């Protein structure tokens, strides 16, 4: 299958008061069309930076980062599910989910029908007219996921979307997310701190080095799909998380030593 996301010798440097700071260097990655790729790495290694570049919120300062556009020029390239949800407090669930479509000029009737369908899929039907302040964290993140999916982007970018949630809510949302993904098989780039989550969700897990961030290892996750949470009890799962942790351990130590 063709590559949907390509990064070649990508570099990102930030100008800070103390001088230039390199966040990404020699970053090479290809993500196939329809692949669910998980990105793990120590804090501050540049995961969010890479994702922001893909989202068009920032630019690489060297090398190449691109998303290969699909045949339909009207289909948006990439939408983000932010860690802090970033659902607009001043919009109802319905208008939040319809936001991307509204920005693209889709008519009211049509966008509200589409948004309604996604709200049903994330089980928020009862809450269409609620404002985010009336929702729990898990529900807000469902809104955020529905907002990105309703816009039907070619690539879905998720930056620790479940990081702020409690363990149970998180587990439920992981399963829901996989179900949604099975229906569309969109290309997904998923940043997480949880090794379990990365192995459970991903087709591959990319482990990054401590800063400046490069790709350290890529681990193929050959667990059968569709998956549910029972897969986490299998020895294969344990072996995979062990492998990811082996690659990650030294990097986390290095990152911590640098910060100290």
């Amino acid at each position, binding site marked *: 299958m063709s590559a949907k996301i390509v990064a070649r010798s990508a570099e990102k440097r930030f100008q800070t008061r103390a001088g230039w700071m390199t966040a990404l260097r020699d970053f090479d990655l290809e993500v196939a069309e329809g692949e669910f790729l998980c990105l793990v790495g120590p804090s501050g290694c540049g995961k969010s930076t890479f994702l922001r570049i893909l*989202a*068009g*919120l920032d630019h690489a300062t060297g090398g190449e980062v691109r998303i290969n556009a699909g045949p339909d020029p009207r289909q*948006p390239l*990439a*939408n*983000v599910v*932010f860690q*802090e949800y*970033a659902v*607009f*407090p*001043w*919009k*109802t669930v319905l208008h939040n989910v319809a*936001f*991307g479509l*509204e*920005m*693209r000029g889709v008519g009211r009737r049509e966008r509200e029908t589409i948004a309604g369908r996604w709200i049903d899929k994330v089980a928020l039907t009862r809450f269409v007219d609620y*404002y*985010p*302040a009336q929702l729990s964290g898990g529900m807000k993140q469902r809104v955020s996921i529905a*907002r990105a999916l309703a*816009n039907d982007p070619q690539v879905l970018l998720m930056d620790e979307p479940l990081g702020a949630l409690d363990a149970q809510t998180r587990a439920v949302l992981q399963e829901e997310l996989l179900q949604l993904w099975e229906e569309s098989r969109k290309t997904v780039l998923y940043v997480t701190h949880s090794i379990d989550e990365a192995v459970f969700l991903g087709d591959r897990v990319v482990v990054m080095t401590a800063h400046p961030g490069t790709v350290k290892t890529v681990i193929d996750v050959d667990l059968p799909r569709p998956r549910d949470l029972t897969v986490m009890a299998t020895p294969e799962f344990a072996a995979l998380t062990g492998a990811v942790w082996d690659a990650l351990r030294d990097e986390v130590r290095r990152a911590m030593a640098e910060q100290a």
Partner: protein
Amino acid sequence: MTPGSARGAGGAAALAWALPLGVLLATLAAGFALGLWASAWWALLGIGFVCVVLLAQEVESRLALRWRGPFQRGLALGFPLSLLLVWELLAGAGILNPRWFPPPSQIAVALWELTVTFDRFNRSSLIGRPWLVPEVAAEQGWAGVQALVRESHVWATLSRVLGGFLIGALPGVLIGMVMGLNRTVRMMLDATMSAIYVLPKIAIFPILMLVFPNPFGEGPKIAVVAISAFFLVAISTMAGVQGIDKVYLEAGRNFGASRWQMFRHVILPGALPIVFSGLRLALGTALIVIVAVEFVRADRGVGFLIYYYWQVLVTPRMYAALVVVMALGVGLTALLQWVERRVMPWRRN
């Protein structure tokens, strides 16, 4: 304290409140008996207040849960009412000088008189005698009704406050938005605005009187209110725009919002809460400023009434005018809150 725990440790709990209350009441009684009222009235007042608080808390803790809400509302209403009652009694007994602190009953009467009478000397009335409207409209038509409106002190103050507030606040929001959005404009204006912001705007009233062709007309009065409102609103609007969480701006950009869409869907609603807190401040300031202006330079308006009845020493009417200012403040604030709830439905719990 829950009823359960009260039952469990009845004796100790009763002591916990009864003992201090007893001591306080004894002190109070001793104070009165020794004739300390004149020299230490403030201390006795404080002790009395603490006694009332202790008693109220004790009563509340003994009430069933569903009676507590009404009880608290009763306190909120009962306290000011009993203050008025105490005032009435103290003034009646001559402990408060009724010349300067006329009893509330006299103030109420004065308010009623002000409302229903027409001041022939000044050709004015408090609210413009609306009961005459049908008659006057039949005899003199629209012009007659306008004359009635013009004789009203409340209308004079209200039109200056509302007019000045709107004339100042709308450009204030606009400039504030621009300052929040554009760094260059902000750099250029911020220092100047902050400097003028701290200047008490009433201080430029004399200049405004020179600027307008009719220094004694409505122009300078409305302008000084407008200027006061403008700076407050502009500065808080700017703060509101700058205070918007970056993540909302990024979400907007990521979903492809154009500049206008960004403004309409992200920046405007994101800044609104702070804009409204600026508007609330501006409204309060507008009232202060207009009353001050009416003190010095007006023959209509509630501020004029206060000052006039102070000069002629008709204090009940002066207090009545104060009550009207309070009512205006409460009414205008309620109006603004109503608008706020309309404009920001997501802030309604």
